Protein backbone atom coordinates (compact mmCIF):
# COMPACT_ATOMS: atom_id res chain seq x y z
CA UNK A 1 0.00 0.00 0.00
CA UNK A 2 1.48 3.32 -1.03
CA UNK A 3 1.02 6.44 1.05
CA UNK A 4 0.17 9.19 -1.42
CA UNK A 5 -0.78 12.05 0.88
CA UNK A 6 -0.43 13.24 4.46
CA UNK A 7 -3.02 11.84 6.82
CA UNK A 8 -3.81 11.88 10.55
CA UNK A 9 -5.71 9.53 12.82
CA UNK A 10 -6.38 9.44 16.55
CA UNK A 11 -6.26 11.96 19.36
CA UNK A 12 -3.86 13.13 22.05
CA UNK A 13 -6.17 12.03 24.84
CA UNK A 14 -4.97 9.64 27.51
CA UNK A 15 -5.01 5.97 26.42
CA UNK A 16 -5.07 7.04 22.77
CA UNK A 17 -2.45 8.08 20.22
CA UNK A 18 -2.09 10.38 17.26
CA UNK A 19 -0.64 8.94 14.08
CA UNK A 20 0.64 10.99 11.17
CA UNK A 21 1.68 9.42 7.90
CA UNK A 22 3.24 11.14 4.89
CA UNK A 23 4.67 10.03 1.53
CA UNK A 24 8.39 9.30 1.45
CA UNK A 25 10.59 11.72 -0.40
CA UNK A 26 13.44 9.24 -0.80
CA UNK A 27 11.77 5.81 -0.90
CA UNK A 28 12.61 4.91 2.70
CA UNK A 29 10.38 3.97 5.61
CA UNK A 30 10.98 6.22 8.61
CA UNK A 31 9.21 5.56 11.88
CA UNK A 32 9.26 8.05 14.76
CA UNK A 33 7.72 6.99 18.07
CA UNK A 34 7.15 9.40 20.95
CA UNK A 35 5.49 7.88 23.99
CA UNK A 36 4.91 8.66 27.64
CA UNK A 37 5.76 5.02 28.32
CA UNK A 38 8.64 4.66 25.90
CA UNK A 39 10.99 3.22 28.54
CA UNK A 40 8.60 0.49 29.59
CA UNK A 41 6.85 -0.30 26.31
CA UNK A 42 8.91 1.29 23.53
CA UNK A 43 9.99 -2.03 22.03
CA UNK A 44 6.44 -3.44 22.13
CA UNK A 45 5.00 -0.30 20.51
CA UNK A 46 7.57 -0.48 17.72
CA UNK A 47 6.79 -4.16 17.17
CA UNK A 48 3.05 -3.42 16.83
CA UNK A 49 3.80 -0.54 14.44
CA UNK A 50 6.15 -2.58 12.25
CA UNK A 51 3.84 -5.63 12.22
CA UNK A 52 0.86 -3.47 11.28
CA UNK A 53 2.75 -1.67 8.50
CA UNK A 54 4.08 -5.02 7.27
CA UNK A 55 0.60 -6.52 6.94
CA UNK A 56 -0.51 -3.44 5.02
CA UNK A 57 2.59 -3.77 2.81
CA UNK A 58 3.73 -0.23 3.58
CA UNK A 59 7.40 -0.14 2.63
CA UNK A 60 8.01 3.57 2.32
CA UNK A 61 6.82 6.75 3.95
CA UNK A 62 7.09 8.73 7.17
CA UNK A 63 5.15 7.47 10.18
CA UNK A 64 5.05 9.59 13.34
CA UNK A 65 3.42 8.19 16.50
CA UNK A 66 2.50 10.35 19.52
CA UNK A 67 1.44 7.76 22.05
CA UNK A 68 -0.45 8.57 25.25
CA UNK A 69 -0.44 5.11 26.73
CA UNK A 70 -2.70 3.35 24.23
CA UNK A 71 -3.28 -0.40 24.20
CA UNK A 72 -1.87 -2.41 21.31
CA UNK A 73 -5.32 -2.72 19.73
CA UNK A 74 -5.71 1.08 19.64
CA UNK A 75 -2.21 1.52 18.17
CA UNK A 76 -3.03 -0.99 15.46
CA UNK A 77 -6.43 0.58 14.68
CA UNK A 78 -5.17 4.18 14.58
CA UNK A 79 -2.19 3.27 12.41
CA UNK A 80 -4.39 1.32 9.99
CA UNK A 81 -6.78 4.28 9.79
CA UNK A 82 -3.99 6.74 9.06
CA UNK A 83 -2.44 4.50 6.39
CA UNK A 84 -5.77 3.81 4.69
CA UNK A 85 -6.50 7.54 4.67
CA UNK A 86 -3.00 8.34 3.39
CA UNK A 87 -3.28 5.72 0.67
CA UNK A 88 -6.79 6.91 -0.24
CA UNK A 89 -7.92 3.31 0.10
CA UNK A 90 -11.68 2.74 0.33
CA UNK A 91 -11.83 -1.05 -0.07
CA UNK A 92 -10.86 -2.88 3.11
CA UNK A 93 -9.05 -6.20 2.91
CA UNK A 94 -10.00 -7.69 6.28
CA UNK A 95 -7.37 -10.40 6.06
CA UNK A 96 -4.62 -7.80 6.47
CA UNK A 97 -6.46 -5.79 9.11
CA UNK A 98 -6.80 -8.61 11.66
Amino acid at each position, binding site marked *: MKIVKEALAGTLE*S*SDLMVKVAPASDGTLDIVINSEVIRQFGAQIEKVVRDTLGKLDVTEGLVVIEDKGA*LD*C*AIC*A*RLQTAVLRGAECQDLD*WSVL*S
Partner: protein
Amino acid sequence: MTLRRSMLFLPGSNAAMLSTAFVYKPDSIMFDLEDAVSLREKDAARLLVFHALQLPVYRDIETVVRINQLSTPFGPKDLEAAVRGGADVIRLPKTDSAEDVHQLEAEVERIERASGREFGSTKLMAAIESASGVVNALSIAKSSPRLIGIALAGFDYVMDMQTERGDGTELFYARCAVLHAARAAGIDAFDVVYSDVNNEEGFLKEVDLIKRMGFNGKSLINPRQIELLHNAYAPTEEEVDYARRVIAAAEQAERQGLGVIALNGKMIDAPIVNHAKRVLSRAQASGTRK
Protein backbone atom coordinates in the same frame (compact mmCIF):
# COMPACT_ATOMS: atom_id res chain seq x y z
CA MET B 1 -30.31 -17.72 31.49
CA THR B 2 -28.62 -14.63 29.99
CA LEU B 3 -29.20 -11.49 32.03
CA ARG B 4 -29.54 -8.37 29.93
CA ARG B 5 -30.41 -5.70 32.47
CA SER B 6 -27.83 -3.13 31.41
CA MET B 7 -26.57 -2.34 27.92
CA LEU B 8 -23.87 0.34 28.15
CA PHE B 9 -23.39 2.58 25.09
CA LEU B 10 -19.79 3.44 24.22
CA PRO B 11 -18.78 5.81 21.43
CA GLY B 12 -16.86 3.67 18.94
CA SER B 13 -14.35 6.42 18.32
CA ASN B 14 -13.20 6.75 21.94
CA ALA B 15 -10.07 4.61 22.38
CA ALA B 16 -9.87 5.09 26.14
CA MET B 17 -13.46 4.06 26.81
CA LEU B 18 -13.21 1.08 24.50
CA SER B 19 -10.12 -0.11 26.34
CA THR B 20 -11.48 0.21 29.86
CA ALA B 21 -15.29 -0.11 29.86
CA PHE B 22 -15.21 -3.77 30.92
CA VAL B 23 -14.37 -2.67 34.49
CA TYR B 24 -17.91 -1.35 34.95
CA LYS B 25 -19.33 -4.86 34.43
CA PRO B 26 -22.52 -4.12 32.51
CA ASP B 27 -24.39 -7.17 31.24
CA SER B 28 -23.77 -6.02 27.66
CA ILE B 29 -21.45 -3.44 26.16
CA MET B 30 -22.64 -1.70 23.04
CA PHE B 31 -19.97 -0.23 20.80
CA ASP B 32 -21.69 2.54 18.89
CA LEU B 33 -20.72 3.26 15.29
CA GLU B 34 -23.86 5.26 14.57
CA ASP B 35 -24.99 8.47 16.26
CA ALA B 36 -22.08 8.76 18.71
CA VAL B 37 -19.53 8.92 15.88
CA SER B 38 -19.05 11.93 13.62
CA LEU B 39 -19.11 11.41 9.86
CA ARG B 40 -15.38 12.02 9.47
CA GLU B 41 -14.48 9.50 12.18
CA LYS B 42 -16.62 6.60 10.94
CA ASP B 43 -13.62 4.82 9.38
CA ALA B 44 -11.52 5.21 12.52
CA ALA B 45 -14.28 4.04 14.86
CA ARG B 46 -14.95 0.99 12.71
CA LEU B 47 -11.34 -0.17 13.03
CA LEU B 48 -11.14 0.64 16.74
CA VAL B 49 -14.25 -1.42 17.42
CA PHE B 50 -13.02 -4.24 15.19
CA HIS B 51 -9.86 -4.56 17.30
CA ALA B 52 -11.50 -3.86 20.68
CA LEU B 53 -13.95 -6.71 20.10
CA GLN B 54 -11.01 -9.09 20.05
CA LEU B 55 -9.64 -8.01 23.44
CA PRO B 56 -9.64 -10.91 25.89
CA VAL B 57 -11.29 -8.70 28.53
CA TYR B 58 -14.52 -8.74 26.53
CA ARG B 59 -14.79 -12.53 26.38
CA ASP B 60 -16.99 -12.62 29.48
CA ILE B 61 -19.24 -9.69 28.55
CA GLU B 62 -21.80 -9.76 25.78
CA THR B 63 -20.61 -7.42 23.02
CA VAL B 64 -23.08 -5.56 20.85
CA VAL B 65 -22.24 -3.29 17.91
CA ARG B 66 -24.69 -0.65 16.74
CA ILE B 67 -24.02 -0.25 13.05
CA ASN B 68 -25.22 2.50 10.76
CA GLN B 69 -28.22 1.66 8.60
CA LEU B 70 -27.33 -0.63 5.70
CA SER B 71 -28.68 1.97 3.27
CA THR B 72 -25.87 4.38 4.26
CA PRO B 73 -22.31 4.19 2.86
CA PHE B 74 -21.13 3.19 6.36
CA GLY B 75 -23.53 0.40 7.32
CA PRO B 76 -22.17 -2.46 5.15
CA LYS B 77 -18.57 -1.73 6.23
CA ASP B 78 -19.63 -1.48 9.89
CA LEU B 79 -21.28 -4.87 9.59
CA GLU B 80 -18.14 -6.44 8.10
CA ALA B 81 -16.07 -5.07 10.99
CA ALA B 82 -18.54 -6.19 13.64
CA VAL B 83 -19.11 -9.73 12.38
CA ARG B 84 -15.44 -10.35 11.52
CA GLY B 85 -14.38 -8.80 14.84
CA GLY B 86 -16.52 -11.32 16.70
CA ALA B 87 -19.41 -9.20 18.03
CA ASP B 88 -21.97 -11.33 19.83
CA VAL B 89 -24.87 -9.16 18.69
CA ILE B 90 -25.48 -6.62 15.89
CA ARG B 91 -27.89 -3.84 16.80
CA LEU B 92 -29.76 -2.49 13.80
CA PRO B 93 -30.92 1.11 14.25
CA LYS B 94 -34.16 2.57 12.90
CA THR B 95 -35.83 -0.76 12.20
CA ASP B 96 -39.16 -0.05 10.55
CA SER B 97 -40.14 -3.48 9.23
CA ALA B 98 -39.30 -7.18 9.20
CA GLU B 99 -37.72 -6.63 5.79
CA ASP B 100 -34.99 -4.50 7.42
CA VAL B 101 -34.07 -7.47 9.61
CA HIS B 102 -34.21 -9.92 6.69
CA GLN B 103 -31.78 -7.73 4.76
CA LEU B 104 -29.42 -7.59 7.74
CA GLU B 105 -29.70 -11.33 8.29
CA ALA B 106 -28.75 -12.07 4.67
CA GLU B 107 -25.67 -9.86 4.93
CA VAL B 108 -24.62 -11.42 8.23
CA GLU B 109 -24.95 -14.89 6.70
CA ARG B 110 -22.78 -13.85 3.76
CA ILE B 111 -20.06 -12.41 6.01
CA GLU B 112 -20.07 -15.43 8.33
CA ARG B 113 -19.53 -17.72 5.34
CA ALA B 114 -16.84 -15.48 3.84
CA SER B 115 -14.92 -15.05 7.09
CA GLY B 116 -15.19 -18.58 8.39
CA ARG B 117 -17.09 -17.51 11.48
CA GLU B 118 -19.43 -20.18 12.82
CA PHE B 119 -22.71 -19.96 10.91
CA GLY B 120 -25.52 -18.59 13.07
CA SER B 121 -23.21 -17.38 15.85
CA THR B 122 -23.91 -13.69 15.19
CA LYS B 123 -27.10 -12.66 16.96
CA LEU B 124 -29.23 -9.64 16.10
CA MET B 125 -31.29 -7.04 17.88
CA ALA B 126 -33.55 -4.44 16.33
CA ALA B 127 -33.96 -0.92 17.63
CA ILE B 128 -37.41 0.52 17.04
CA GLU B 129 -37.30 4.28 16.64
CA SER B 130 -40.41 5.33 14.72
CA ALA B 131 -44.17 5.04 14.64
CA SER B 132 -43.85 2.56 11.75
CA GLY B 133 -41.47 0.44 13.78
CA VAL B 134 -43.82 0.39 16.75
CA VAL B 135 -46.79 -0.54 14.58
CA ASN B 136 -44.73 -3.36 13.00
CA ALA B 137 -43.14 -4.45 16.28
CA LEU B 138 -44.60 -7.97 16.29
CA SER B 139 -43.51 -8.82 12.74
CA ILE B 140 -40.07 -7.35 13.50
CA ALA B 141 -39.77 -9.39 16.71
CA LYS B 142 -40.65 -12.60 14.85
CA SER B 143 -38.54 -11.86 11.77
CA SER B 144 -35.42 -13.94 12.50
CA PRO B 145 -34.29 -16.76 14.76
CA ARG B 146 -31.12 -14.74 15.29
CA LEU B 147 -33.01 -11.95 17.07
CA ILE B 148 -32.31 -11.91 20.81
CA GLY B 149 -34.32 -8.79 21.49
CA ILE B 150 -35.90 -5.56 20.38
CA ALA B 151 -35.20 -2.17 21.90
CA LEU B 152 -37.22 1.01 21.98
CA ALA B 153 -35.11 4.06 21.16
CA GLY B 154 -36.79 7.08 22.66
CA PHE B 155 -35.21 10.13 21.09
CA ASP B 156 -35.99 9.40 17.43
CA TYR B 157 -39.35 7.92 18.36
CA VAL B 158 -40.63 11.02 20.15
CA MET B 159 -39.36 13.16 17.28
CA ASP B 160 -41.33 11.00 14.85
CA MET B 161 -44.39 11.32 17.10
CA GLN B 162 -43.98 15.11 17.13
CA THR B 163 -43.61 15.23 20.90
CA GLU B 164 -40.74 15.24 23.41
CA ARG B 165 -39.43 13.24 26.37
CA GLY B 166 -41.39 13.88 29.54
CA ASP B 167 -42.83 11.78 32.34
CA GLY B 168 -43.19 8.68 30.18
CA THR B 169 -46.70 9.35 28.93
CA GLU B 170 -45.22 9.99 25.49
CA LEU B 171 -43.73 6.46 25.46
CA PHE B 172 -46.72 4.66 26.94
CA TYR B 173 -48.04 2.97 23.81
CA ALA B 174 -44.61 2.28 22.34
CA ARG B 175 -43.36 0.61 25.52
CA CYS B 176 -46.44 -1.58 25.69
CA ALA B 177 -46.28 -2.49 22.00
CA VAL B 178 -42.56 -3.30 21.98
CA LEU B 179 -42.78 -5.29 25.19
CA HIS B 180 -45.77 -7.34 24.04
CA ALA B 181 -44.15 -8.02 20.68
CA ALA B 182 -40.98 -9.23 22.37
CA ARG B 183 -42.83 -11.49 24.75
CA ALA B 184 -45.02 -12.90 21.96
CA ALA B 185 -41.86 -13.73 20.02
CA GLY B 186 -40.04 -15.09 23.07
CA ILE B 187 -37.21 -12.55 22.95
CA ASP B 188 -35.92 -9.80 25.23
CA ALA B 189 -37.17 -6.21 25.44
CA PHE B 190 -35.02 -3.17 26.23
CA ASP B 191 -36.16 0.23 27.34
CA VAL B 192 -34.89 3.65 26.27
CA VAL B 193 -31.84 5.57 27.48
CA TYR B 194 -32.37 7.91 30.44
CA SER B 195 -30.22 10.82 29.41
CA ASP B 196 -30.41 13.07 32.52
CA VAL B 197 -27.45 11.30 34.12
CA ASN B 198 -27.37 13.54 37.21
CA ASN B 199 -31.00 12.86 38.06
CA GLU B 200 -30.68 9.66 40.07
CA GLU B 201 -34.19 9.89 41.48
CA GLY B 202 -35.73 10.27 38.03
CA PHE B 203 -33.65 7.40 36.70
CA LEU B 204 -34.73 5.05 39.49
CA LYS B 205 -38.35 6.05 39.06
CA GLU B 206 -38.16 5.13 35.38
CA VAL B 207 -36.34 1.87 36.17
CA ASP B 208 -39.04 0.94 38.67
CA LEU B 209 -41.69 1.51 36.01
CA ILE B 210 -40.03 -0.52 33.26
CA LYS B 211 -39.11 -3.35 35.62
CA ARG B 212 -42.72 -3.65 36.77
CA MET B 213 -43.86 -3.55 33.13
CA GLY B 214 -41.59 -6.51 32.38
CA PHE B 215 -38.65 -5.10 30.40
CA ASN B 216 -35.44 -7.14 30.63
CA GLY B 217 -33.38 -4.01 31.02
CA LYS B 218 -32.37 -0.66 29.70
CA SER B 219 -29.86 0.98 27.41
CA LEU B 220 -27.46 3.18 29.42
CA ILE B 221 -25.16 6.05 28.53
CA ASN B 222 -23.32 6.47 31.83
CA PRO B 223 -21.50 3.78 33.83
CA ARG B 224 -22.81 5.31 37.07
CA GLN B 225 -26.28 4.07 36.13
CA ILE B 226 -25.19 0.41 36.01
CA GLU B 227 -25.04 -0.26 39.73
CA LEU B 228 -28.29 1.64 40.33
CA LEU B 229 -30.02 -0.39 37.65
CA HIS B 230 -28.65 -3.75 38.78
CA ASN B 231 -29.62 -3.04 42.36
CA ALA B 232 -33.14 -2.06 41.34
CA TYR B 233 -33.45 -5.30 39.37
CA ALA B 234 -31.96 -7.37 42.21
CA PRO B 235 -34.58 -9.38 44.10
CA THR B 236 -35.23 -8.80 47.79
CA GLU B 237 -34.15 -11.42 50.33
CA GLU B 238 -37.81 -12.36 50.79
CA GLU B 239 -38.20 -12.93 47.05
CA VAL B 240 -35.06 -15.10 46.97
CA ASP B 241 -36.26 -17.12 49.93
CA TYR B 242 -39.64 -17.71 48.30
CA ALA B 243 -37.98 -18.63 44.97
CA ARG B 244 -35.82 -21.22 46.72
CA ARG B 245 -38.88 -22.76 48.35
CA VAL B 246 -40.70 -22.85 44.98
CA ILE B 247 -37.77 -24.63 43.32
CA ALA B 248 -37.47 -27.09 46.20
CA ALA B 249 -41.20 -27.84 46.10
CA ALA B 250 -41.09 -28.30 42.32
CA GLU B 251 -38.13 -30.68 42.58
CA GLN B 252 -39.85 -32.68 45.27
CA ALA B 253 -43.03 -32.89 43.18
CA GLU B 254 -41.02 -34.10 40.20
CA ARG B 255 -39.40 -36.82 42.30
CA GLN B 256 -42.87 -37.90 43.46
CA GLY B 257 -44.29 -37.77 39.95
CA LEU B 258 -46.81 -35.05 40.81
CA GLY B 259 -47.97 -32.66 38.09
CA VAL B 260 -49.44 -29.86 40.15
CA ILE B 261 -48.14 -28.82 43.54
CA ALA B 262 -49.00 -26.29 46.20
CA LEU B 263 -46.82 -24.14 48.42
CA ASN B 264 -48.40 -22.42 51.39
CA GLY B 265 -51.78 -23.14 49.85
CA LYS B 266 -50.94 -21.56 46.48
CA MET B 267 -50.70 -23.59 43.28
CA ILE B 268 -47.20 -23.76 41.76
CA ASP B 269 -47.02 -24.33 38.01
CA ALA B 270 -44.38 -23.97 35.30
CA PRO B 271 -44.56 -20.15 34.88
CA ILE B 272 -44.08 -19.69 38.63
CA VAL B 273 -41.14 -22.10 38.63
CA ASN B 274 -39.59 -20.24 35.67
CA HIS B 275 -40.07 -16.93 37.46
CA ALA B 276 -38.39 -18.39 40.56
CA LYS B 277 -35.41 -19.49 38.45
CA ARG B 278 -35.16 -15.98 37.02
CA VAL B 279 -35.20 -14.49 40.53
CA LEU B 280 -32.37 -16.79 41.63
CA SER B 281 -30.40 -15.95 38.46
CA ARG B 282 -30.66 -12.26 39.23
CA ALA B 283 -29.70 -12.85 42.85
CA GLN B 284 -26.67 -14.85 41.77
CA ALA B 285 -25.61 -12.09 39.36
CA SER B 286 -26.02 -9.10 41.63
CA GLY B 287 -26.93 -10.30 45.11
CA THR B 288 -30.05 -9.15 46.88
CA ARG B 289 -31.33 -5.59 46.83
CA LYS B 290 -29.48 -3.16 49.09
